[in-house]
């Protein structure tokens, strides 16, 4: 029987990042992926690295990850399409203007750069609709080509000796007391010393195999991709409604059909100069299909901010399943107390690309050192047990 030191379930960006950082420590690691590498949510997202949207303690984790991105292109020897564009937060509703300005103030207090655009500056921005009532420009936020990041991590992990098995599904585990000793896959059974659950939206099913109830379910998101357009000054635009739909507290607005489908604009111009028009948030089980209605709302909302999009061609659409923690929406990270050798890294929701580097780094450190990483303390599985 084949033996591996660390077996990671899931070949998405999270599993790949953990594999990379483990391999950097010289640890022998095998990633087992049921489909294709980066074929899940990690291949169906916008590659945004939003920083300004979060509250501590998640903000602390996001900031550390953002710092790692600074040196990642060089470290992986690959141009990751890292674009330190900042975010332009925009509102259409006059009554949201003061909320936006408060939000901008709070960012400044936290040492995150933010400035309001004056009405002159707004008018000078020919791409923006006249209806845009106010905008705040932040500086910490960035974007990246998520495939370049994923494949960059995979290729360096491989160069360091990591093994990636695709088209191989983990079906069951064999335990000995508090220890997982073997993993049964659709191809072979593997012996292991440590198991990492990075199975994304399906990480609950891996938890079930060892008797843990992991509160994660898929939250669908849909995206449109435009043809390339001339390089814009602001390449990462976000609808202020996004904060309500993505990060909760959307109660009163839930009344409209658009808000029910969780549609708020997140617009990113990729390194290839195509725009991705995101995103929506709904619960549809493991259904990964796009729907005409949601795409309709996405398209309509985007044209309200960028009217030129009206006649711009859409070349593709797709949907992905975010791994979403239905208790508190936060990631679930680190060693599980109930077992001797089981680690978890999931629930990254709409922030998995953002958080991949820090997740990989800290999970690898916990596995290698046997000590807990302090930054992960707010995100442990044990937080569900007191409830």
């Amino acid at each position, binding site marked *: 029987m084949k033996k591996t030191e660390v077996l990671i379930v899931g070949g998405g960006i999270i599993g790949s990042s953990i594999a990379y950082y483990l391999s950097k420590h010289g640890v022998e690691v095998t990633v087992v992926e049921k489909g*294709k590498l980066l074929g899940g949510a990690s291949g169906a997202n916008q590659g945004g690295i939003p920083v300004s949207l979060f509250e501590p303690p998640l903000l602390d984790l996001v900031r550390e990850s953002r710092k790692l991105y600074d040196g990642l292109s060089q470290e992986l020897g690959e141009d990751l399409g890292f674009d330190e564009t900042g975010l332009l937060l925009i509102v259409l509703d006059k009554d949201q203007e003061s909320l936006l300005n408060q939000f901008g103030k709070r960012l400044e207090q936290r040492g995150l750069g933010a400035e309001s655009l004056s009405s002159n500056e707004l008018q000078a921005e020919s791409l923006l609709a006249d209806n845009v009532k106010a905008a705040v420009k932040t500086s910490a936020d960035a974007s990246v080509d998520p495939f370049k990041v994923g494949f960059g991590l*995979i*290729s360096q992990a491989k160069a360091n000796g990591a093994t990636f098995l695709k088209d191989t599904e983990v079906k069951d585990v064999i335990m000995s007391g508090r220890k997982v000793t073997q993993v049964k896959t659709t191809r072979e059974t593997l012996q292991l010393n440590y198991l990492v659950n990075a199975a994304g939206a399906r990480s609950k099913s891996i938890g079930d195999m060892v008797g843990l109830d992991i509160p994660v379910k898929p939250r669908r998101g849909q995206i449109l991709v435009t*043809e*390339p357009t001339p390089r814009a000054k602001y390449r990462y635009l976000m609808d202020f409604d996004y904060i309500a739909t993505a990060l909760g507290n959307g109660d009163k607005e839930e009344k409209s059909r658009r808000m029910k489908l969780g549609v708020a604009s997140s617009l990113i111009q990729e390194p290839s100069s195509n725009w991705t028009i995101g995103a929506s948030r709904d619960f549809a089980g493991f259904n990964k299909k796009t729907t005409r*209605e949601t795409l309709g*709302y996405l398209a309509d909302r985007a044209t309200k901010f960028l009217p030129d*999009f009206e006649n*711009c061609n859409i070349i593709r659409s797709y949907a992905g399943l975010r791994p979403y923690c239905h208790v508190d929406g936060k990631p679930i990270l680190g060693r599980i107390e109930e077992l001797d050798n089981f680690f978890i890294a999931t629930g990254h929701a709409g922030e998995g690309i953002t958080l991949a580097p820090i997740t990989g780094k800290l999970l690898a450190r916990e596995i290698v050192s046997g000590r807990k990483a302090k930054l992960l303390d707010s995100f442990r599985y044990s937080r569900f047990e007191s409830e």
Partner: protein
Amino acid sequence: MESVKDSSSEPDEEGSEKIVCRCEEVTEGEIRESIRTYKLDTVAEVKRATRAGMGLCQGRSCEISIKRILSEETRRDISEISADSVRPPTIPVETGVIADVIRGGGGNEED
């Protein structure tokens, strides 16, 4: 252990500089290298790893070449290599047309 770093992008065979995907300017050599490095065996994976077929024409002109290269690299008959799944629209459509579904009177769930 595989020596990923050594599989250099230098042209090492005939045709490797040939552009396969014109929209995204991806060469045959880049596609072959990705297939070998990541052990790719489907058109969808080649698209993700190289961006070939991700451009304006969405692979309508290059998908057949990608299939041929895949069949050579993985030593399978070209008929065994399935097409990538369709991600609508099948031809480019203006954003406004997509938005029309919900404009003027509520949308209805389809697909």
